[in-house]
């Protein structure tokens, strides 16, 4: 079980700010997790399309596609940040 968080435009488009998910065996890093969510189709496929500049944080650290994800992790998806 992992916690998935969505912020800003993604939160609005997905219509949710968080969910609990059980990862299938083939999901071991950010890349495969994103691919798995994309397979939900619709807005998921659209917002998480490879061309979209989506950022991912694993346990509140900025992550890359190769970053490992494992049970208990908090994984957040969001657009490039625009604070300051």
């Amino acid at each position, binding site marked *: 079980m992992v916690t998935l968080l969505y*912020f800003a435009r993604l*939160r609005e488009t997905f219509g949710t700010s968080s969910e609990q998910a059980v990862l299938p065996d083939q999901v071991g890093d950010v890349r495969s997790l994103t691919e798995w969510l994309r397979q939900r189709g619709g807005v998921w496929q659209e917002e998480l399309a490879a061309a979209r500049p989506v950022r991912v944080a694993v346990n509140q*650290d900025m992550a890359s596609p190769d970053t490992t994800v494992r049970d208990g992790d908090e994984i957040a998806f969001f657009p490039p*940040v*625009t*604070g*300051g």
Partner: protein
Amino acid sequence: MAARVQTEDFDLGAEIARLRQGNPAIGAVVAFVGLVRDLNENASVSEMTLEHYPGMTEKALTEIEAAAKSRWDIVETLVIHRVGALQPTDQIVLVAVGSAHRHEAFAACEFIMDYLKTQAPFWKKEQTPQGAHWVDARESDETAAQRWIPPQAK
């Protein structure tokens, strides 16, 4: 070293007074204040809402301050970032650095702002006559942060 995320406004004078209070080793303070403009990318802005990622925000800001401290000879740093609904001329962010000499304070303050702009999880949504929209990240902010990376590390 302190990082705060808050909905309330902040008092620049009081924050800087606290930052340097009783420390005669500080000869220079550089403070940056970011404000809501009424115009962005040629659209007039009536209101702005700032969202953030609680927990990660404080962590990211503290890490950026620590990076500045390890890089320059500075004494104190402070970051305050507001979230929630803000109007034009409202204060958004304060970054302040105190050091013995001025160049370190200028460089560290600008470094913290450049990294905050690309690394700290805040998002702006603007209200304009054409409706509300999420602000797009600017390429120039990415470029600004990149210039602090030593050539051999790129």
